[in-house]
């Protein structure tokens, strides 16, 4: 069960300003049924161009409803300029905090508010800016960048908590890492090898790994290893020197050689010693 603050529960059970403003000046819609939460925000301005009334309709969990309710309370009485400065963090703080996995509910509120203000100003509904990074939830690189900057996010998990990006099939995790590194000005380290190796590439990589990583450490103990063949994902080797007579050679083979090759070449590999 989520640890919601009393204020979240209060705004969920007794939402303020539920509904739609009649003849609204601003309308902002954010989210979708597929994503599991959606918010329609409407507001009406008074003669001094302050938000006189704001109402919401929300499909979503308790924190989505509470965030929407909080948003309407926060913006009432504000000028559009003031309202434009409201952040997702303001919404979360108004509620005494949200569970981190639910921060995206506050981001949804902020986004709906921005859209409603843009609607009033007659700025045509902005096309989705940037490139979609997360296909599952339709989140773009620019949206991710912004969330990282505004909330100082450092991990993929945090980006998911705030934007939902990366919360589905997870295939965009590496791209999200790249964006985080870019925002913080770090060079991006690619730690993954090409997804599929051709047979030739695989054999070459096995050879290189044996030479560079495995042989030197075996040689320290007076042992050596020779690559005999690669059949599918089975690497056939011959142990030499002290390794050949060592009682622990099977352990060396499985725990050291195999795990090293799996780590650096491909996880499907198994290592076997040539039959005498």
């Amino acid at each position: 069960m989520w640890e919601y603050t009393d204020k979240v529960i209060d705004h969920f059970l007794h939402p303020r300003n539920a509904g739609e403003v009649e003849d609204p000046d601003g309308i902002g819609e954010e989210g979708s049924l597929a994503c599991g939460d959606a918010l329609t925000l409407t507001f009406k301005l008074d003669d001094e161009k302050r938000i006189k009334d704001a109402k919401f309709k929300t499909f979503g969990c308790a924190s989505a409803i509470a965030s929407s309710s909080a948003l309407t309370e926060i913006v009432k009485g504000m000028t559009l300029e003031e309202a434009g400065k409201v952040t997702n963090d303001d919404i979360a703080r108004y509620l005494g905090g949200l569970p981190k996995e639910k921060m995206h509910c506050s981001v949804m509120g902020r986004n709906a508010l921005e859209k409603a203000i843009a609607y009033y100003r007659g700025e045509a509904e902005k096309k989705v800016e940037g490139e979609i990074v997360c296909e599952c939830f339709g989140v773009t690189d620019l949206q991710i960048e912004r969330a990282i900057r505004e909330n100082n996010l450092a991990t993929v998990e945090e980006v998911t908590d705030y934007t939902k990006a990366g919360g589905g099939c997870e295939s965009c995790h590496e791209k999200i890492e790249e964006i985080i590194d870019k925002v913080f000005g770090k060079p991006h380290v690619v730690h993954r090898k090409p997804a599929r190796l051709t047979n030739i590439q695989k054999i070459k990589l096995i050879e290189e790994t044996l030479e560079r990583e495995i042989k030197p450490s075996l040689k320290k103990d007076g042992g050596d290893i020779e690559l005999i063949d690669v059949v599918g994902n089975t690497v056939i080797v011959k142990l030499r020197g002290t390794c050949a007579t060592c009682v622990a050679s099977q352990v060396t083979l499985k725990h050291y050689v195999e795990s090293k090759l799996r780590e650096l070449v491909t996880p499907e590999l198994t290592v076997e010693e040539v039959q005498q």
Partner: protein
Amino acid sequence: MKVIYTDNNATTQVAPEVVEEMLPYFHDLYGNPSSMHSFGGQLMRKLKEAREKVARLIGATPDEILFTSCGTESDNTAIRAALASDPDKKQIITTRVEHPAVKNLCEYLSKNGYSVTFLPVDRQGRLDPEHLYKSLSNDTAVVSIMWANNETGVIFPIEEIVQMVKEMGIVFHTDAVQAVGKIPIDVRKVPVDMLSLSGHKLHASKGVGALYVRKGTKFSPFLIGGHQERGRRAGTENVASIIGLGKACELAGKHIKKENERVKYLRDKLENEILKQIPNAMLNGDREHRLPNTTNISFEYVEGEAILLMMNEFGICASSGSACTSGSLEPSHVLRAMGVPFTAAHGSIRFSLSIYNTEEEIDFIIEKLPPIIERLRELSPYWKQ
């Protein structure tokens, strides 16, 4: 506030008779059954009795029952034992709707040298045996298919499919955690090789489960250590809980008729009234081949967590397949595998009853739920009257 507990597929109340049976083994008879003194050693006989009771419920012999710590351990043990006893075979066949104890293990294994076939289900959550038969190969090490689904209660035709798998000499494991105690199960008639069950789903305590391993099935232990369970599951026996599980199985055997008449009657009443009174509500899962205690209903245009928390205000306990309740961002993998549209999957609620539910409780839910759904729909931008 009175608690109305209709979340029995999550866990159950420990039966008062079970608690009573367990208590002496905490304060008085706290010995270790492996000890050479009779203070501890006498407990061996109690474990034997418990083993007989568990075996009797599913038509097994006592030496085919291993006690474990939970359903998840039973599932992990079974699948890993099958793989270890036939190391050349690299294919696992399971379904897309398994409990995470099987599903996530299989996903893990698929990244570690095994190929896993996840069989689809249809819109009613049913399995087409033809899909299974076509997937079987000489490389198949194990087929692991649940007896009944925890979210929808849909029962798979284990009796029908096990034959073909066995004919090919492939190990058949079933996660029967939700089925044992709710419907009659007899491994003499349904020749599965291994079957998992869990104590806390049938009114025993948490922290105890069992694995049935058919005599003659190749086996290798998951936990290695002492000689307990004849070397098949190391670790000092959870004496009190095992004795409780024995009692719970004995009671389950007695109550199975009540489960299938009384509990089913209450479930049907709850389900029919909800579907009648609330528009845009639909049943998830095969109405016919289903556990007697479970109903899974989707309410369009509202979200499950919000429904649960509003019911919580009245002390009503249930579960949801919505994204927000799972801690992930996507709704239940079971409902998605069934092709339940997003409009409905996010608003799904599972009620799972037990013999302890009363008709007054069911009437109370029937009274409280429609206004909750109505209220949330009034808040929803998608709901148009």
